[in-house]
């Protein structure tokens, strides 16, 4: 049997993970001019359009709530093909109720942050899972086997891309910075399964370079620095729509494009991504600072001792020591 060229399938098929922020403190606050129900109608229409674009497109919806994250919808699930919208809404409602029940706090100052890092991590695991199905062709233990097995006999490799759209609404916090950055870097790296597993039989030259672009659609009042960085680092699109009534138009023209088409489409470019760091002592944004060589904490002023790791600085006063920051140093910092 001669293998069908996988290029025929690889460029138009996509796996879309949609992360919806259901933070009730935002949706009910004065900042949001779009009611949640209207927002959901736009999103449902968008999901349908994705599924219509190509027979083999898959969509998975994950909700990021205030206290928990969970899977809401998976288009590769063979049950209930006719009542998908009802299922999705039903599950979303259950999720939100659940989220409220496990809330332990009496009241919250301001909107509070949603669990972006948790939902991103789950989505990345799910993408890897779909990738493994595509490569392994195992039909023993998996729910999704029936959908994919037929396709495998005809072409060697289906799913080559995955990407996200995220609806974010609220402020960012430093406390979840590390977790979010970890997820972003993992999405940026090529998810190369042959590094971690030996996949012999379906090795194909297209496999291996799978980058997951993170697109963001921000509906809040302010720009989200985390999502700007995420989109920039992973090669996705960052958009802050101005007119919410036309949200479906933004979604379908910008975010519904598959990865192959993005090479020749003119998509919104970021105006400027702010990569500056904030110092650990005052939380100010700084553009020049001092870094502890042990734990990489950032300080705006020279200190004797690192407050994070406790190391005492500059016991050997070398010429690189930063006790004289103003004098122009001749010696380069690096060799």
């Amino acid at each position, binding site marked *: 049997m001669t*293998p069908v060229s996988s290029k025929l399938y690889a460029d138009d098929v996509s796996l879309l993970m949609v992360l919806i922020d259901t933070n009730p403190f935002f949706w009910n606050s004065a900042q949001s001019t779009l009611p949640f129900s209207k927002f959901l109608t736009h999103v449902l229409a968008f999901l349908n359009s994705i599924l219509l674009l190509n027979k083999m497109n898959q969509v998975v919806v994950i909700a990021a709530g205030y*206290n*928990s*994250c969970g899977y809401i919808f*998976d288009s590769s699930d063979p049950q209930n093909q006719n009542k998908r919208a009802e299922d999705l809404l039903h599950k979303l409602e259950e999720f939100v109720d659940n989220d409220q029940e*496990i809330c*332990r706090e009496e009241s919250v100052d301001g909107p509070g942050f949603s669990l972006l*890092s948790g939902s991103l*991590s*789950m989505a*990345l*695991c799910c993408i*890897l*899972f779909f990738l493994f199905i595509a490569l*392994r*062709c*195992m039909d*023993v*233990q*998996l*729910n999704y086997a029936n959908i994919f097995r037929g396709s495998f006999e005809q072409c060697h490799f289906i799913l080559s891309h995955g990407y996200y759209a995220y609806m974010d609404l609220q402020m960012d916090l430093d406390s*979840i910075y590390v*977790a979010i*950055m*970890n997820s972003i870097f*993992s999405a940026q790296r090529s998810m190369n399964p*042959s590094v*971690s*597993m*030996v996949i*012999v039989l379906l*090795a194909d030259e297209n496999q291996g370079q799978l980058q997951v672009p993170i697109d963001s659609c921000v509906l809040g009042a302010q720009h989200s620095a985390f999502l700007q*960085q995420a989109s920039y*680092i992973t090669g996705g699109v960052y958009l802050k729509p101005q007119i919410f009534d036309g949200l479906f138009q933004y979604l379908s023209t910008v975010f519904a494009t598959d990865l192959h088409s993005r090479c020749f489409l003119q998509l919104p470019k970021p105006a*400027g*991504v702010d*990569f500056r760091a904030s110092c650990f002592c005052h939380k100010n944004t*700084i*553009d*020049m*600072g*001092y*870094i502890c*060589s*042990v734990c*990489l904490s*950032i*300080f705006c002023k020279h200190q004797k001792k690192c407050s994070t*790791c406790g*190391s005492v600085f*500059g*016991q*050997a006063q070398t010429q*690189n*020591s*930063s006790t004289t920051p103003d004098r*122009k140093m001749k010696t380069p*910092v*690096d*060799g």
Partner: protein
Amino acid sequence: MNKDANFLPESTFKISNEDSICRCIAHEKPKAYSTTLGRVVLDKEEKCLTKRLNTKIVFITQEMQRQRRLRTTTAARIQKGLIRYLYIVIDLSRAAGEMDYKPSRMVVVARQVEAFIREFFDQNPLSQVGLVTLKDGVANSLTSLGGSPESHIKALMGKLTSSGDASLQNGLDLVQSLLNQVPSYGHREVLILYSALSTCDPGEIIETIQKCKASKIRCSVIGLSAELYICKYLCQETGGSYSVALDEFHLKELIFEHAPPPPAIAEFAVANLIKMGFPQRAAEGVISICSCHKEAKVGGGYTCPRCKARVCELPTECQICGLTLVSSPHLARSYHHLFPITPFDDVTPSATNNPNKLPKICFGCQLSLLNPGNMPAPCVSCPKCEQFFCLDCDIYIHESLHNCPGCESFRHSKLVVA
């Protein structure tokens, strides 16, 4: 066809390229390499057998990986050397032209070093790498310490020829003199990829080793032919690691073990505050003269906060004022070394007292954790949030993601979900 899934006659496969050689069929090493670039062709009968083999291979590799990872990582927060200055010493002596690795040892080594350099800068963005070659009894510095992977790779792939003897002492002398110029907060390391079985030295190598030890350089060696006593002695004295590669895959594994930062010995590097700048990205459409290429460029660069010169990429050192320029994601790439996640525990079905608490689906990817017939499949669980994960997610989480989805998905992570 033999029913034992562990054995398949070699004629069944045409291996598509060297990197997809199946290595883990129980304890066997592949006996012959095939470099034909034919595609894998299977007919229907072979597919069933290969599917079973596939499952078994997958399971064996997962287990091997987990065991290896558990051996090498601990959950404790050990101080790691995050700012590293690493020299890679590549042996290009006569022995590197041997063809036991296809096409020849030095080509294989060069390929692996290229992949390693990329991985190294991915995991250690603030570190620097330099290359040294050993050829004809002398050591030459191929590239000096720098933070950009492309220049090293280009120099390495330039012209690979092997001749003469390898001299370990000359290599160590050169590296030691180069690393002495490095600032004191950096960790000094050397990785030697040694193919030869002997070393041709001008003097007393033991003295050189003692000098390296006094300069606090951590030397590690990866041998390609056999174990040598002098390499073992070198690694023991300086606190590095010595291993000998069995085949190309093993070589790749051994080299990649050096990518994550090693545990730091406190006296080796003095803690210091390093002044760094965080440049902003210039707006699209701004025209300025770039200081690295010395020509006018439109948009898309970074502006040094101290002297306002334009640089093309980060991390780098400003050519005009000497300030180290990084962006905050570069620092964030190293944070997972400082806050490692706890290894997951194995879940044995007999250990759970309550049959209702058996895991049904993996929390990360929703894979069903029950084999047909309601038998529990192998899975792991996080000790903090008590969620269950399948083995694939476990490997991915610990090798790439560094975040437990369970702990991140619940605001109050001690919560047990019914």
